């Protein structure tokens, strides 16, 4: 039984989700203690419980401590089974975070899967759907499997009610890749999505983007979302390079001006553009687990976040893969994955 201290590093729900994902792909039982110990409401909240329950379902695990407020979970995975699954995440919790927990084992499952997730699709502190679809999944697909994501209905905090569908064609095993250069920029576009709010918010956001980034009107769009249950606003900037696509997001919130929302995304985009490395901070974090599981490959990153460092620690507990992070160029880090046998 692998023991994980849930309060180390980033110390939040990520350790729980990634530990369970790693337990499923390795088949090792795991006990996670002190879950979210430093948070104001420690232990499992509803969205974490849903993640644990979803994982339990896809691999027929034996689990204890799966209750609200529980700070210790024991998870003994069984055989991962692909198939048709639906999970609902309460409090407009992030669908992509639950997906993060269960997708990795399904990539190499015995048969294809179709996962329907209800809840929030564009949450602060979680990868938004557009990032998942355009930045993350194309790289996963480069590793062997074929994953397709569809946004059936957007879900914003606090109303939720969004739905995403993920279809997975598994591969026998994951194959690492090498991603050291962005290649040439092929397309860039900005989108201000407005749900149940005044479209003028979108105008102001697009205005900020045009001014600060100097993008052409054809590269800017306002998307009035008609099928959202509640209000929501999000700004998405996408840079499509030859070898990688990156997505930057600004989230609308109560009492936050449209300008501030757009500026947040613009600044993230500008920071990335100043770098030369292809893989941004969030994408780095997402790629840690699949690349480690593949056990080979390398990519150049703009830098390691606390999340990524926590991931490296965690991976060490489950896998033999060696992860080396070293200075690549003046402003980028080269992360190399190799099988630990040598």
């Amino acid at each position, binding site marked *: 039984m692998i023991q994980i201290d849930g309060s180390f590093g980033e110390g939040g729900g990520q350790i729980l989700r990634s530990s369970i994902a790693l337990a499923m792909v390795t088949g090792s039982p795991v006990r996670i203690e002190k879950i979210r110990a430093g948070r104001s*409401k420690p232990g499992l*909240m*509803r*969205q974490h*419980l*849903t993640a644990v329950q979803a994982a339990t379902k896809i691999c027929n695990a034996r689990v204890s401590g799966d*209750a*609200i*407020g529980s700070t210790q979970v024991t998870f003994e995975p069984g055989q991962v089974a692909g198939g048709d699954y639906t999970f*609902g*995440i*309460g*409090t*407009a*919790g992030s669908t992509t975070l639950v997906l993060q927990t269960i997708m990795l084992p399904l990539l190499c499952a015995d048969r294809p899967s179709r996962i329907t997730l*209800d*809840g929030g699709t564009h949450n602060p502190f979680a990868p938004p759907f557009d990032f998942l679809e355009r930045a993350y999944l194309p790289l996963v697909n480069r590793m062997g499997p074929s994953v397709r994501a569809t946004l059936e209905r957007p*879900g914003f*905090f*606090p*109303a*939720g*009610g969004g739905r995403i569908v993920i279809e997975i064609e598994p591969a026998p095993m994951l194959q690492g890749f090498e991603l050291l250069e962005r290649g040439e920029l092929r397309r860039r576009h900005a989108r201000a999505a407005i*749900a*149940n*709010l005044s479209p003028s918010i979108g105008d102001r956001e697009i205005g900020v983007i045009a001014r600060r980034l100097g993008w052409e009107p054809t590269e800017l769009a306002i998307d009035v979302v008609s099928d959202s*249950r*509640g*209000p929501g606003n999000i700004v998405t900037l996408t840079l499509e390079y030859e070898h990688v696509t990156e997505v930057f997001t600004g989230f609308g919130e*109560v*009492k936050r001006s449209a300008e501030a929302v757009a500026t947040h995304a613009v600044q993230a985009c500008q920071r990335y553009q100043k770098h030369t490395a292809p893989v941004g901070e969030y994408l780095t974090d997402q790629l840690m687990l699949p690349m480690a599981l593949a056990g080979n490959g390398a990519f150049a990153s703009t830098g390691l976040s606390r999340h990524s460092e926590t991931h490296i620690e965690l991976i060490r507990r489950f896998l033999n893969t060696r992860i080396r992070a070293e200075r690549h160029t003046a402003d980028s880090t080269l992360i190399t994955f190799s099988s630990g046998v040598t």
Partner: protein
Amino acid sequence: MSNRVVIGLLGPALDRGAGPDRWSQWRPTVSLCQHEELLISRIELIHDPRYSALVDVVAEDIRSVSPETQVRLNRMTFRDPWDFEEVYGKLHDFARKYEFDTEHEDYLIHVTTGTHVAQICLFLLTESRHLPGRLIQSSPPKRRSSGSPGNYAIIDLDLSRYDRIASRFDTEQREGTTFLKAGIETRNPAFNRMIDEIEHVAIHSSAPMLLTGPTGAGKSSLARRVFDLKKLRHGITGRFVEVNCATIRGDGAMSALFGHKRGAFTGAARDRAGLLREADAGLLFLDEVGELGIDEQAMLLRAVEEKRFFPVGGDREVESDFQLICGTNRDLGESVRSGAFRDDLLARINMWSFEMPGLAARREDIEPNIRYELLRLTDATGRRYQFNKEAFAKFLSFSMAADSRWCGNFRDLNAAIARMATMSPTGRFTTEVVDREIDRLRMSWRMLTTPTDGPDASAIEALIGERLDDIDEFDRVQLVHVVAVCRDSRSLSDAGRRLFGATRKRRKIANDADRLRKYLARFGLDWASVVRDVNS
């Protein structure tokens, strides 16, 4: 883990909200489902059909923020939602018809929405346990339009009531005597004197006590209260172990009392400590001690005197330092004379002997005991039980009457109260309920008048003598009646006519005198002896 189920009313004002703006408002019913640490498996939403459009929005929004929650809609029409009687009646009906599954579901009664009248009714129904759950009260966030779900508090009325009752009992029972009487203000002077003595002995002595008295006089509950008092005054640290010796007669008695070692006999798969060991440092109450077998008596004597004994099949003595109270409804002196009880054991256990009078001997204590039983019932069931004034007067006067025998003593009284509670769904005992209970009590006492202990039985005993033991109870009843009829009749033929009247109507030839003669002869009796005896 049990599932959380919320029961609440749709708030036509507070839950209102149309358009996307509603998400920045605090809507108690929807907001309750938006707390990240409160997982609600099901919500029972009670609503007036007038607000069906609103309830659809609320239900849909709950599904959106809480896919884990099943939303069940319950229609309830109020002509006037401010009319206390109507609202209470309808909510009461809802509670009565609802199939609560308290073993698997944890109910939270949401009292933030609905009219104040509805909120008060929900409170009352929860307090009376018609709604077997806790209250949940939600409140808005500090900043109204922040979209935050606000706060909530779960209130367990059971706990607060428990505290209140406990503190009330604390003051009532400060005195040991009141304590021993369970807080019942008994009025019978002899009984009160006895309790004074028991209190003194309980506090100052650890010697055995013997409680005698008829069954149901309260020996067992007094023994437990003596234990509680000793514990309160730090006279004892262990447990209260109670055993009815009548239930452990035979082969198992030894090992039940004194324990056994593994393999002592077939089926002794492992060591068993036995009740005496369990009572170590505590108090052992042996009820019906007169039923104890003679071997067990010998062992018990040694255990009491030496504080050590051999478990069955054990070759090493074990120790147990327990205090002892024995109870019996037998005359143990008589048992000693007949050889059924050891005199040395009796001498040892009746160091302090108290005779508990039956209920019929302390009728003035019936009233405080009725009040106590009602209180206890309310405490145990969470419902308030009361007599109406007239019914109480009626039951009391029946209880006090000289021909109310109270054969089962307090057991009868408690059973009567419990039965009346069952028959009173509203919690109020009416005169009809009391009348029916009086009939039931009279009937049960009549049934207990067996021929062997009634005056008539003594009549046939005089006739038949020792042979009575050979006659089945089945036949005794008949014989008692036949003898009584004979003695009330002028002649054998007269008695025969009365006894065989039904046959006589069907037959042409009357032979009832002959039948009666033959019947008496079966018991070695004839007309003369039956009638003569009555005159002597």
